[in-house]
């Protein structure tokens, strides 16, 4: 047997495997790189674009979408999808507005809204898990249900006059120079940080990735698959509720038609951020970058200011496509599957 002693692996091979390890980050890195490139392009094309505040406004105007994308990232990483998020945002806003109008304490209102959102998500997760119904359908029913409940609460829009909410809406946290952010930005970034920590530093987070890599394998490996799958929808529901509160801070109202179609924005942001819809691959920071990309597309359009309504749509679609193609090009050599 002595002839069989293994020669150490040649240098090249280890290098390849390292490279493949790094290549995981390629789509996400491409996203970040493209964002910077787009920002630069905007700066060249439009006066006043190159300012710190334009960048910060991207955050201020998208706090709720960031939080939604975080929740959605969890779900998509397991290979699922959550279509209900937009409606749950609206429902959260309606509940908050209605209760505040009824004179509830704002902190109690926030607590209740978060609880409702999380419960709503958990219930959907339970149906998905226990009855083995496809997430797409369960969360689509969730979309109908939550939106329907909005109408049941009130068809009219409700204004929020609560001093705490008003203060949160109008507070400005000054940064250097005359730059500022809104408190919601801090909340959203904290959510991102927590999500990052949970996904990469806890067993729960790793189970999320494992389920995306292969659910039956994860099950056979003895991981807590059912619990994790249910929780993931709970997290998404909780994130939707947080996003609802942030949206309330942002718009100081409850409106039953608010946040329609936001689920597609969230999914698009997650996917643009480099997460695979089939699950298992992706990063929450990529989703953050994805939101910023979608935001900057909007900014481009308002800076352009000459697009008719239909050209706006066409340009949004075209920019999305251009972006996906570039991302594809940059991360081309990566073999993910």
């Amino acid at each position: 047997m002595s002839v069989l002693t293994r020669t150490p692996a040649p240098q090249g091979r280890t290098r390849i495997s390292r490279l493949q390890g790094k290549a995981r980050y390629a789509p996400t890195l491409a996203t970040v790189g493209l964002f910077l490139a787009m920002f630069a392009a905007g700066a060249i094309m439009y006066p006043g674009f190159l300012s710190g505040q334009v960048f910060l406004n991207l955050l201020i105007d998208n706090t709720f979408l960031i939080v939604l994308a975080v929740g959605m990232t969890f779900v998509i990483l397991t290979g699922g999808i959550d279509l209900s998020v937009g409606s749950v945002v609206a429902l959260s806003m309606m509940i908050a507005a209605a209760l505040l109008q009824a004179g509830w304490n704002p902190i109690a209102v926030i607590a209740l809204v978060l609880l409702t959102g999380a419960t709503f998500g958990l219930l959907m997760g339970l149906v998905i898990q226990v009855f083995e119904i496809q997430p797409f359908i369960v969360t689509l029913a969730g979309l109908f249900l939550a939106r329907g409940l909005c109408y049941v609460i009130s068809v009219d829009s409700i204004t929020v006059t609560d001093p705490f909410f008003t203060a949160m809406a109008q507070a400005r946290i000054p940064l250097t120079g005359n730059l500022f952010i809104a408190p919601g930005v801090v909340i959203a970034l904290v959510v991102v940080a927590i999500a990052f920590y949970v996904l990469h530093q806890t067993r729960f987070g790793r189970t999320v990735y494992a389920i995306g890599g292969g659910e039956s394998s994860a099950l056979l490996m003895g991981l807590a698959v059912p619990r994790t799958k249910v929780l993931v929808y709970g997290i998404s529901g909780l994130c939707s509720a947080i996003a609802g509160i942030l949206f309330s801070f942002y718009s100081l109202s409850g409106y039953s038609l608010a946040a329609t179609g936001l689920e597609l924005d969230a999914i698009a942001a997650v996917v643009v951020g480099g997460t695979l819809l089939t699950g298992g691959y992706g990063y929450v920071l990529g989703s953050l970058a994805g939101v910023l990309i979608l935001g900057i597309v909007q900014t481009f359009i308002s800076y352009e200011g000459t697009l008719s309504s239909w050209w706006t749509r066409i340009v949004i679609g075209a920019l999305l496509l251009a972006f996906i193609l570039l991302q594809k090009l940059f991360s081309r050599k990566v073999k993910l599957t």
Partner: protein
Amino acid sequence: MNALLKHRLTWPVLALVLLLVLNQLFRSDFLSVRVQDGHLYGSLIDILRNGAPTILIALGMTLVIASRGIDLSVGAVAAIAGAVSCTYIYNSPDPTSLRTAAIGVSIAVVAGLALGLWNGFLVAVIGIQPIIATLVLMTAGRGLAQLVTDGQIISVSNDPYQAIGAGFFLGLPISILIAVAAFAVAGLLTRRTALGTLIEAVGINPVASRLAGLNARTITWTVYVFSGLCAAIAGLMISSNVTAADANNAGLYIEMDAILAVVIGGTSLAGGRYSLVGTLVGALIIQTLTTTVYTLGIPPEVTLVFKALVVIIVCLLQSSKARTLLGKRKRPLTEQAEVKVAV
């Protein structure tokens, strides 16, 4: 009997029947169909006629989903189809003739095929995830439709054109005849040729399919083109039914209805085995649900809650888990070992 209970179409069909019975309880003449102006008239006919676009789009969607894809752009494609044909008819020198209608329809069909080609190109050749690839057209497509109509609702009055969505042939709505014909063609095409099996193979395991020598690219491309075609014809029906092209609202959210129909019909979004008949039943359930809301006079504020509850109930009944609970059959734990009944 037991086999019937376990058949995956049993529960959707039962749900459909229950919905119809519910309507009948509320309005005793709901199920009655009479002849008026030489064609059939009644709520059931309305369901078929109004459901035809959804049925057609769900048909295309079934094959896309079987190949492990999804097509979000169908609503936009439908809008574009309506827009180009109506705009053509509106601007033509002879806006009421059959010839004009035929040309208008052809333009729309070609547009649908082209848009399907485009989606297929992004998915099969470039390799973009289907949901994003078709999201591009979903977003931009309505813009294109509005570009064609200049943002206006284009009204046409062309009898042959109107017949597509609102006309009758041998007493039956032409739209449903078209939809059923499309089903028959698709059924024949996929089951008489090998297309059906090959689509399923690609949907279940693309890697293995490629190694078995399948031209997955062509197959994927084909299903998107077919979906585009279905969406275009559905768009013609929608615009013809109201003799106007509404670029903004035609086929809005129809992609969700279609996907819902496909899934209620028992096809998994994960790709693979599909059932065209199931999709047909699913689409009819969805249309009947809408009609039920009107018949029962459910106030608009609670319509969505009602719909959500029905969808949940139908899905619960239809889920294999619930069926096994009913049938008391022990099931293996892994999804891999799931027992599926073919149609």
